[in-house]
């Protein structure tokens, strides 16, 4: 189980973000911040991923896409809302095609506000999401052993 503790694989989806947060997510992976050295890899396939990073707010068009990605991820999984748009809609909150934060569609474990967020904040959020993953895993294990005992 210890393998989960350090090297989660992440998947990134751009809701309706302006790119500011997206390029900071990518910046986390590249040489200056380089979280890949801890084995944290950005995956294209939801079934390989432990943590979903969503940037940007929810709109009608992407509601189902976000839901699909989330549903395809294996348990335990964690979701981080990157940037104020993903948290609440942010500066675009009043736009006609913005419904608000992604917590309207899927459960969010870590909120990382900022416009745009800094890579340090994203890394901190991913580390917090690791804690969430551990908790969920412990709960799953307790659940399955209780079942086996019963």
């Amino acid at each position, binding site marked *: 189980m210890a393998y989960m503790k350090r090297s989660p694989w992440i998947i990134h989806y751009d809701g309706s973000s302006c*790119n500011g947060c997206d390029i900071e997510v990518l910046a986390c992976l590249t040489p200056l911040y380089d979280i890949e050295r801890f084995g944290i890899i950005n995956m294209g*396939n939801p079934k390989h991923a432990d943590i979903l990073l969503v940037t940007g707010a929810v*709109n009608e068009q992407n509601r189902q896409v976000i839901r699909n990605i989330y549903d395809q991820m294996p348990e335990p999984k964690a979701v981080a809302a990157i940037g104020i748009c993903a948290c609440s809609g942010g500066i675009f909150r009043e736009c006609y095609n913005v419904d608000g934060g992604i917590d309207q569609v899927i459960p969010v474990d870590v909120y990382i506000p900022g416009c745009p967020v800094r890579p340090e904040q994203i890394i901190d959020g991913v580390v917090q999401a690791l804690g969430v993953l551990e908790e969920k895993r412990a709960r799953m294990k307790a659940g399955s052993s209780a079942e086996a005992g019963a």
Partner: protein
Amino acid sequence: MSRRIVIPFGPQHPVLPEPIHLDLVMEDERVLEALPSIGYVHRGLEKLVEKRDYRDFVFIAERICGICSFIHGMTYCHAVEGIMDLDVPPRALYLRTVWSELSRMHSHLLWLGLMADSMGFESLFMQAWRLREHVLDDMEATTGNRVIQGSCKIGGVRQDISNQKLREIANGLDQLELDLREMVNVFINDETVKHRLSGVGTLSSKQAWDLGAAGPVLRASGIANDIRQTGYAAYDELDFKPVVETSGDCYARTVVRAKELFTSIDLIRQAADKIPDGAIDMKVTGNPKGEFFARSEQPRGEVVHYVKANGTKNLVRFRVRTPTFANIPPLLEAMKGLELADVPVVVLSIDPCIGCAER
């Protein structure tokens, strides 16, 4: 006769940082046609002008896109200043030019990295992004933020850069230029890169012009069109030539952007030499009334901001024509006859910025 099939590409795809969806009509490995559907990132921010003060709207204009954000903010300011007939202090115009060119460098480096990633050249991707951090450090040192600066405002700019700091930035670019030459050498001369990019997704200059391509896509097809030559901000006092290539394929688009990095370095150096002393902003009173088209050259091509105002603090209409939107028809043309494995490379070659295109 092989069967026709439709392969969906996107919206969530490993090579795309942003969601766009293409239906690829395929026959065997060849693309016959690509049908785009967009709208995943549409926010409807143009309509927000009715709710926000025109001065505050600069912040929203900057957030049309996080990559070319400074230039969006600046173009919006140009449009409103055009209506109000403001004489922006020359120092502010020079500072805008410096930040525009820094934005262009960070955007091109970002794109060169993504392009390398799309052809599986991971180490080159990392090198491009490593060098990009140098530009972002300059951004952060002068504006306090890495990607969305918030340093432009109607009537001038919010922060000054001291002459000494400008000198430091210009000197710092000497080392960056050496590093860039080393990296660009790989993009231009490496056999692997040439093999993946040459002759792929070709657009003739007639096709590019007829389909309304903008920016590097147009210049890579041999048409020297660069809106900076119209001389907005301080460009009329600086000396530069648009970078033009003639082969019109993905390789040419890569070379144009790679060479433009050095144009930007040169422009920043010139600006640091010529920048006049004086005020960086002016007092803006009253509300705009009238309409204006402002055009500028973004990293991805020409952007047009149209602003219409009726003398109240809210604008009546704000409309943006972004370069990515202009480049989608040429992209669809360039994709015909491609092999499936080349699709990601060609899609990236127009430097798609969906955040801009859909707003």
